[in-house]
């Protein structure tokens, strides 16, 4: 009051009155706008926000993004279900719970985001959207695929595994940890990888960052098959140390990264390890200072070792590999199992004159089948289901290898034909009917697969996610006259590549012969097991 009284004479000055009016008005306006906590005078992004943006983009304009996000936060337009990363950041920084409806952080007493989150999962046949309820995810594991034979696979691979529990039973009983762990068919693997949009991988593009990098989602068993069976590599799967609420939040944030992040994949510097490291810094902001999350240009094997010793993982689970294999923390290479199968067969079967596993697998499938189906060997395998299964798994291994050989041959031939780069030139060599089938059955699926998909500003709404239930290859391509037309198209394609085509044909023939043997052995094994159960 005293101060106002003393100021009274000044208030009579017109200019001063105008200025004071402005100040008062501004003050009134500012009171209506939600202001940061009094302690915060910093409207600049900090390291945590920077880490967040780097998890969503390779070249973020951090200050601009911060201003936009801050405005959204302040105007309550930041949606916890759409941008969980930003929401969590602003909530924890400014300690202010959202007021609107369901938009509240867990633990505040207000309802949290309960929506399931989507992932676009690449299965062998199609892309499909899977909606994951975070409450059904029992754990998030760090997966490390051990070193492979190839020169470029000597550093391994890292990814995250979602341990998804089976759906609740009718009594809504929560699944046990063991049930969740063994529910491998539903587990998802999330890993940063290159989206290769050509028939053959261009190593130079991989080195220079010309492939898009994304956080891909795929079935865990597909990865297991690829690493442990195709390439004889071991897998470690070590749980992250997370509370239930942390886990729920991280799953949503992983979904946001999955739909939003698009970067430039580079073998050096922007690979699975460095990208995962960046993501973990954003996902575990209170742990971001750990050295394991700060190394630059880190390799997958290095990241794995660093994380094992960082206190971020339940590393004790892999101290004993035998126990770890029982619990699903370690998946050894399947090579010893195949070797054991090979040894068993070599001791029990007649005319089994192969020196080692590789030479056995290199033998023509029909020759192996003739040996397996001989009168005496047939009797031996029928009477010993364990041995019968040994024969089966070796044939299945052969199956995967022949598929790879076939694919590699086809890839090379198609790449050389230029079909992917200049499809119009190739089309010009076809007649009208062939062109129609070429477009529908070859070009269109290739375009779908080559398209990395749109990016979203956060987790998309269901309406924003394209329906993608159709298989890559339409069944219509194998009906009516389509097969004949497709054959004609491939014949045009194969001109000038006859030798390679023969090799492809041979690989496909081997594949077919092997699957015939596989089905036969499987049927015999089923019969033997039934006979053993019902003597």
């Amino acid at each position, binding site marked *: 009051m005293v101060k106002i009284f003393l100021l009274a004479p000044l208030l009579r000055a017109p200019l001063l009155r105008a200025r004071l009016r402005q100040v008062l008005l501004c003050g009134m306006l500012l009171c209506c706008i939600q202001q940061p906590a009094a302690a915060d005078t910093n409207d600049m992004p900090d390291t945590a926000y920077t880490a967040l943006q780097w998890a969503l983009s390779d070249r973020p304009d951090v200050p601009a993004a911060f201003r936009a996000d801050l405005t959204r936060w302040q105007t309550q337009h930041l949606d916890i279900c759409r941008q969980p990363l930003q929401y969590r950041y602003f909530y924890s920084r400014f300690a202010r719970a959202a007021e609107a409806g369901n938009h509240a952080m867990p633990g505040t007493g207000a309802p949290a985001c309960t929506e399931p989150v989507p992932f676009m999962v690449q299965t*062998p046949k199609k892309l499909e959207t899977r909606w994951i309820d975070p409450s059904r995810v029992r754990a998030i594991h760090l997966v490390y695929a051990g070193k492979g034979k190839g020169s470029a696979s000597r550093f391994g691979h890292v990814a995250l595994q979602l341990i998804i529990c089976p759906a609740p039973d009718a009594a809504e009983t929560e699944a046990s940890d063991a049930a969740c762990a063994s529910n491998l068919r539903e587990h998802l693997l999330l890993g940063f*990888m290159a989206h290769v*949009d050509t028939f053959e991988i261009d190593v130079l593009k991989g080195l220079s960052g010309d492939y898009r990098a994304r956080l891909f989602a795929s079935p865990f068993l597909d990865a297991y098959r690829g690493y442990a069976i195709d390439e004889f590599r071991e897998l470690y799967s070590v749980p992250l140390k997370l509370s239930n609420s942390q886990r729920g939040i991280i799953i949503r944030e992983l979904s946001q990264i999955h739909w939003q992040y698009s970067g430039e994949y580079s073998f050096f510097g922007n690979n699975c*390890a460095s990208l995962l490291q960046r993501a973990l810094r954003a996902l575990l902001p209170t742990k971001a200072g750990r050295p394991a999350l700060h190394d630059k240009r880190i390799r997958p094997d290095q990241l794995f070792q660093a994380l094992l010793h960082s206190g971020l993982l339940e590393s004790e689970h892999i101290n004993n590999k035998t126990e770890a294999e029982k619990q699903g923390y370690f998946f050894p290479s399947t090579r010893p199992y195949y070797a054991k199968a090979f040894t068993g067969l070599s001791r029990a079967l007649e005319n089994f004159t192969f020196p080692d596993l590789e030479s056995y697998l290199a033998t023509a499938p029909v020759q192996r089948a003739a040996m397996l189906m001989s009168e005496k060997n047939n009797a031996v395998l029928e009477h010993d289901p364990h041995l019968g299964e040994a024969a089966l798994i070796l044939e299945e291994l052969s199956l995967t290898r022949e*598929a790879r050989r*076939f694919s590699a041959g086809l890839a090379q031939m198609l790449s050389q034909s230029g079909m992917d780069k200049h499809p119009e030139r190739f089309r010009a060599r076809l007649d009208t009917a062939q062109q129609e089938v070429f477009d529908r059955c070859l070009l269109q699926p290739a375009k779908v697969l080559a398209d990395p998909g749109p990016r979203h500003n956060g987790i998309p709404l269901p309406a924003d996610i394209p329906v993608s239930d159709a298989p890559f290859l339409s*069944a219509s391509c194998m009906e009516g006259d389509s097969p004949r037309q*497709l054959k004609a198209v491939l014949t045009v394609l194969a001109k000038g590549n006859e030798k390679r085509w023969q090799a492809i044909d041979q690989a496909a023939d081997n594949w077919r012969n092997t699957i015939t043997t596989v089905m*036969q052995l499987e049927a015999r094994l089923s019969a033997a097991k039934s006979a053993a159960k019902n003597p």
Partner: protein
Amino acid sequence: MKKTTPVLFAVLFAAPALLPASAYAGSLLRVACYDDNEGATIYINGVNKGECSADVPVSAGSVTVQARKMVDAEHERVWQKTVEMLDNVPKRVEVQLSGPQLTAAAQRQREEQAAKQRQAEAQADLQTAKQNDVAAIERVIRRYQQGDGLKADAGQAKQWLLRLESAKAARVLAAAEGGSAEAMEDLVQRYEQGNGVTQDAAKARQWRERLATIHTQKQAEERRTTLLAKKKEISFFETTLWAITGGKKLAQRDEMSGSTTFSFIILYLPAWLAMDAASVPFKISEQKKIDKELEELALRPAAWGNPDSLIARAAQQSAR
């Protein structure tokens, strides 16, 4: 003249009545032949009476009239009729010769020739049968039973019957050794019953086991053939899908694996086109069966190699 004809007829017809009975007993048989029947030789009760046509006096009673006319050295045409003659009642028959047929002599000659032929064949069969030829033995048995080419002899037939089973058994054994399932079945019975072979339970068991193996192999082969046919329809597509599986995973590896240089993009291609030109319908049900089989592939080696592993538990879960 007019005045003499009636008198002449009366004398002619009355003459037989005016003659003393002891002068003509019987009647007159006119055998008439016309057209190509003319020239046939007439036989009355087997006695040649010359050429047709002729009036032949015959006694009363049953008279057999035959007519024969040679066509060539071995063939003749014949006719025969039995006529009942009454005293003093003339009759007339007209010959209608048959088509050409073998003369009796020619018939006999031919029969003799045939008999000689049969004997020769029988001897040949006998020689062949001695070599254990089953068909020849069967013929020899029949010959001895029926006296066909060989003098009928029940004892010989029986001997050869025993030898037949032995020969059959030898043939069956050869076929069984060659892998014939039917022969093996036959052989099992023979050893069990001592039919054509010495009864031998051990050998019967051996062949029974071998037969069981053949059946399993046959079933396996049939299933293989069926599967091959089915797989031709869908395995081409499966190859594509498998290629997609393998390629996708490899293409999206962080490390450009030295063993993989291809992208998943190519892998949607219908691989069956590389194999066979058959235009085949896509069988969803078969596809699902193979899908299931291929899904198990991921779990099987570890489940087999280490039944204590998590993979083994996951495999058991899926089996349930």
